């Protein structure tokens, strides 16, 4: 019976390559760019736009840009009083180069710049391990980053102790201020946000009402009005003759605003925790504080990490609004430099804004990538 049956093949055929019409570059192009006549039209429009604008943009940004120079003459055309050919237009990176230290640190005394740089180094050294899920000792790291680091940097930046020169906050500026405001906003909004969210979910009517009113009031108004309130009304609300630092007022405004948003994100997490978890904690005889810190909050916060990071991104972008209450964050200082007679040219504003925009973009994009990474990781851990 081992006789082979003639009409049944007993050996596989040689595998063949897929037909050229399905796997070649041509096929990819046909399937992804010209699948139907509508697609073809869209593709052609898109390609035309790219061919028309991308080389122009690259040319403006890099190839015809001015990279070196000491004042605006470097970026002016012949008819404007410079030496570049008539009709020239391009980025004036020489200006960004000239102002770079100011864009980063504002008017912070130049011989004291090691202080913000040291703070930055500490920040990076603490943040990087904190963000990497594999590195152990998260608790200690968090303590260092969120409690010890702010205190040390505060004294390091403002000085006046240990023989450090006192540097007033009115001298601070640039990216440094943007980062400080957003960091303080982030660090203070988390605990306040958690308390507000717990208050809002509490069964005590007065507490609940107070939290709801606060959250909805702050979320209902633009950040500008909160900043105006912090900068104009706060001094009126305190003891006559008080003198709160302007920088501090902006910090308070941003923190209040961020807390209200953070509270709503955390509340989302709290609502997603099944009731059984609360009941189990009650059954174990845990009190409210233990129930929340050991059972509910760890799960809830883990669930909403992407939302928290998104709130951070929003806050980072929102710090640019302090420009309006005349403080000089990155955007503010870049904009203020447009009026500087040393660098007034038609291309200065665009160059400065592109620089500021790119800097903001790097930070926000980085954060959103990180959020996506965490989201994927959390997804995995939930699938068994």
């Amino acid at each position, binding site marked *: 019976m081992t006789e082979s049956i003639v009409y049944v093949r007993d050996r596989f055929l040689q595998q063949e390559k897929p037909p050229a019409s399905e796997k070649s570059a041509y096929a990819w192009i046909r399937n992804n760019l010209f699948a139907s006549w509508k697609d073809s039209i869209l593709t052609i429009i898109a390609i035309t736009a790219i061919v028309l604008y991308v080389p122009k943009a690259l040319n403006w940004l890099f190839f015809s840009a001015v990279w070196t120079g000491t004042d605006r003459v470097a970026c002016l055309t012949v008819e404007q009083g410079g030496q570049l050919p008539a009709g020239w237009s391009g980025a004036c990176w020489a200006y960004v180069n000239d102002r770079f230290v100011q864009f980063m640190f504002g008017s912070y005394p130049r011989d004291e710049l090691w202080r913000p740089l040291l703070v930055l180094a500490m920040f990076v050294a603490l943040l990087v391990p904190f963000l990497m899920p594999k590195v152990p000792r998260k608790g200690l790291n968090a303590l260092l980053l969120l409690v010890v680091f702010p205190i040390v940097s505060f004294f390091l930046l403002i000085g006046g102790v240990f023989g450090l020169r006192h540097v007033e906050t009115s001298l601070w500026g640039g990216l440094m201020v943007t980062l400080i405001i957003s960091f303080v906003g982030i660090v203070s909004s988390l605990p306040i946000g958690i308390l507000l969210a717990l208050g809002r979910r509490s069964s005590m009517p007065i*507490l609940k009402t107070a939290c709801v009113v606060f959250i909805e009031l702050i979320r209902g108004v633009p950040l500008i009005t909160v900043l105006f309130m912090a900068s104009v009304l706060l001094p009126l609300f305190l003891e*006559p003759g*008080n003198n709160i630092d302007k920088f*501090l007022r902006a910090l*308070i405004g941003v923190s209040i605003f961020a807390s209200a948003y953070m509270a709503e994100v955390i509340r989302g997490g709290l609502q997603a925790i099944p009731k059984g978890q609360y009941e189990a904690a009650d059954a174990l005889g845990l009190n409210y504080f233990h129930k929340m810190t050991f059972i509910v909050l760890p799960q809830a916060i883990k669930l909403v990490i992407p939302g928290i990071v998104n709130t951070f991104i929003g806050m980072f972008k929102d710090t640019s609004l302090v420009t309006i209450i005349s403080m000089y964050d990155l955007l503010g200082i870049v904009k203020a430099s447009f009026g500087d007679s040393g660098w*007034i040219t038609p291309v200065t504003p665009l160059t400065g804004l592109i620089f500021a925009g790119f800097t903001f973009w790097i930070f926000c994009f980085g954060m959103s990538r990180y959020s996506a990474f965490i989201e994927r990781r959390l997804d995995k851990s939930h699938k068994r």
Partner: protein
Amino acid sequence: MAKKIVTALVGAAVLGLGATAAQADTLSDVKAKGFVQCGVNGSNLAGFGAQDSAGNWAGLDIDICKAVAAAVFGDATKVKFTPLSAKDRFPALQSGEIDLLARNTTWSVSRDSQLGFDFRAVNYYDGQGFMVKKELGVKSALELSGASVCVQSGTTTELNLADYFRSNNMDFKPVVFEAQDEADAAYNAGRCDAYTTDASGLYSIRLKMANPDDHMVLPEIISKEPLGPAVRQNDSKWFDIVTWSHYAMVAAEEFGITTANVEEMKKSANPDIKRFLGEEADSTIGADLGLPKDWAVQIIKAVGNYGESFERNVGEGSPLKIARGLNGLWTKGGLQYAPPIR
């Protein structure tokens, strides 16, 4: 809960940044904290309040702040500057954030009464004017009907502008900006035909333009703008010090006392000068003001007399090159006049 947190936060932060609660008496408050907090122009108005790239302040308004510090402490460096926008300046003074507002602020009756400030000394007699591009061919502000005018919001300038065009039956399109540097940039970019602010400001802004010679300031002055330091109302002691710090500078010019010759002048035989410089044996002028005896000497040493300060900041010694004009001494056809110091 929320309020509690906010209050706690504010409280902690107040402690952290060393805020001080003050009494209604600004002088003792200033003496207690050891410096004068002075509100100045935050948008780099050359000649009045501007910061160089190293962060040092200079200008006519800066000098009045320094003069007050010199008078109180004998040390002109004991002053801190708070850069303010037109919008922040009044709340800052009202709330006590600053002790003294020297931010090219016009003395007007509503500010004196309604806003609750006190003005007396005028460190610059100004008036509102217009600047245009020469290529427009405009020779007078009366030819500006239909023009777009750049103006900074929340200033008396904005009100005068509306009144001027209204009273001359002309129409205009206001282009309003929050900060002066935004208005500068917009004017420079051709967003508006004319730029209006105090004439002194126009000269300083003209310097910032890509090509200052392309712009001209029109002859019309449409308002009176006496600019001077302001303090909170009902604090006459502090008010006196600020006022007389300015008059001391003017008196010094009247007497011919300068930074260079002040030590020499102490030996002068002129009883007026001796009294002024605190060299008279039983002089109580300084003490009555709540100041040291040699307060005037300290002011002159720190910032010079009014003429010196003027020339250095806005006059021939500066890029602005503004003529003394109304700001000359009364003996030379100007309005600067110091009441007798005796």
